[in-house]
């Protein structure tokens, strides 16, 4: 006779967390799916669930430029974050020595200033007569009418800044894992530093670059604060559309469709990227 005793402890321990995530994560997303297939508005008469899938068609038609711009900005911002972050991670790992931990501090600095204050500080830095542009104009390096605020450049650099720790930390980890003996072996075999980098270090750090770029791309594509505070009102991102449709015009069904379409497109983009990168990038 076998008595199967079920141990209840794990279920009791996991219950609060599991319930919280089910009710306040899965349920809202499911609810948003229902809203995206509804008609009507919350202020007059309420919404009715009618399988109105045309919302997705409308969202695609009306917001296509915003979707494209978001992905474009996020891709450029991610590229910048990697370009700026990679040399830093490389420097910390291979030249940091005993100062490694201290050197990691600037990397996580963007996380230590309040998101909004950070964005406002960028506004000040890039202001038309601020410290950078003002000085350059004073020195005659720039014409008087030059500006950066309100341009795509300002938005993509700010996006890169905001999510830079996400890009750098995985690269740091993958570079840190490289066995120094490999580099010595390469040098013994007469590889110059550039060849060593190209043939050994870069391929071994690609998993980090892969993880870092996904971690940067996803939040960047959904961001709306930078586009609103540093960009031009004519070139906003899809996050701005979702935000204003939900909070200002109260057009829930269309906004819900836009939000879920963003999620879907993001999954497609990440999957394609993973394919492009090859499987060794994923498993390494």
């Amino acid at each position, binding site marked *: 006779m076998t008595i199967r005793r079920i141990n209840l402890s794990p279920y009791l321990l996991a219950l609060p967390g599991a319930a919280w995530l089910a009710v306040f994560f899965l349920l809202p997303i499911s609810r948003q799916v229902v809203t995206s297939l509804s008609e009507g508005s919350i202020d007059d008469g309420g919404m009715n669930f009618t399988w109105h899938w045309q919302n997705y068609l409308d969202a695609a038609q009306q917001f296509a430029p915003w979707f494209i711009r978001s992905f474009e900005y996020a891709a450029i911002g991610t590229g910048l974050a990697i370009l700026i972050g990679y040399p830093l991670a490389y420097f910390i790992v291979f030249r940091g020595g005993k100062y490694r931990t201290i050197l990691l501090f600037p990397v996580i600095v963007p996380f230590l200033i309040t998101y909004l204050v950070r964005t406002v500080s960028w506004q*000040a830095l890039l202001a038309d007569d601020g410290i950078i542009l003002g000085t350059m104009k004073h020195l005659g390096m720039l014409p008087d009418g030059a500006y950066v605020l309100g341009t795509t450049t300002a938005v993509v650099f700010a996006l890169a800044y905001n999510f*830079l720790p996400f890009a750098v930390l995985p690269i740091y980890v993958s570079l840190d894992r490289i066995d120094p003996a490999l580099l010595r072996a390469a040098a013994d075999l007469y590889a110059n*530093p550039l060849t060593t980098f190209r043939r050994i270090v870069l391929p071994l750090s690609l998993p980090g670059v892969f993880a870092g770029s996904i971690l940067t791309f996803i939040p960047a594509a959904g961001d709306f604060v930078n586009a609103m505070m540093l960009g031009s009102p004519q070139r906003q991102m899809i996050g701005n559309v979702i935000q204003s449709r939900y909070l200002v015009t109260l057009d829930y069904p269309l906004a819900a469709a836009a939000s879920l379409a963003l999620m879907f497109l993001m999954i497609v983009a990440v999957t394609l990227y993973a394919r492009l990168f090859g499987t060794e990038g994923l498993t390494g």
Partner: protein
Amino acid sequence: MKTAKLGRFFSYHLLTAAAGLSVLFLLAPIGMMIALSFNQVIGRFDFVWHGFSAAAWLHPFAVDGLLPALEISIVLAVIVATIATSIGTALAYAQVRYKFIGSGALDLILLLTVATPEVIIGSALLDLFVGFQVETGVITMFISHVMFDIAFVTIMVKSRLRDFDITLEHAAMDLGATPALVFRRITLPLIMPSIVAAGLLALVLSLDDFIISMFVSGQVVTFPLFVWGTARIAMPAQIYVIGTAIFLTLTAALFTTFFVDQRRARRMGLT
């Protein structure tokens, strides 16, 4: 041979320069924030340096609405971090120490909550609250903050639980300790650093949250929402003072936990 040497020289210094520029880029907004906190305010937008003044530091709450907003932010963050850390630690313990039905599904959900852009989570939560006619305010913000914090806490505590030597727990049990005693005397002290770190992260994420809060805050104004509201009208130096104060506090907390952790590790002979 000469060109190779030259190339090595260039690549060496090029890397230093690139890393230096990156650090400059990372620290620039901090420098700007600290500088502007000492700026003499003339217009409503003081993006230009008008001269040194400590007025904003001496009267940090001279701006209407700033103090209540900061108070709400801090109280909310502390409560949220406490609850989320407890829930997340329990979940992590269950997942690492036991096998149970649904554990794999939970992993997927945890990953999804971290990977989903905030604008989608925020709008979906608003959709839910409006749909069930829950008035948005402090409570809905509390619910939402705990929700996004749980995953971060769970992931951090789980990695520590996986890392440590399980034979320590087995030894205690062999010596007759009950599971509860083992947890309290062996497991908890060993994973404490990661719980503290996770709690700190939960606190920061709640304190800093803007996007999700914007959707579910109703009429309540937290510090980030206050900055957002005021940024269109005026930019008092006090905003930068509070920003600097938060930055310094978090930096101090980070370094303290780091050094305490290192000393502990050294004392226990782990390094």
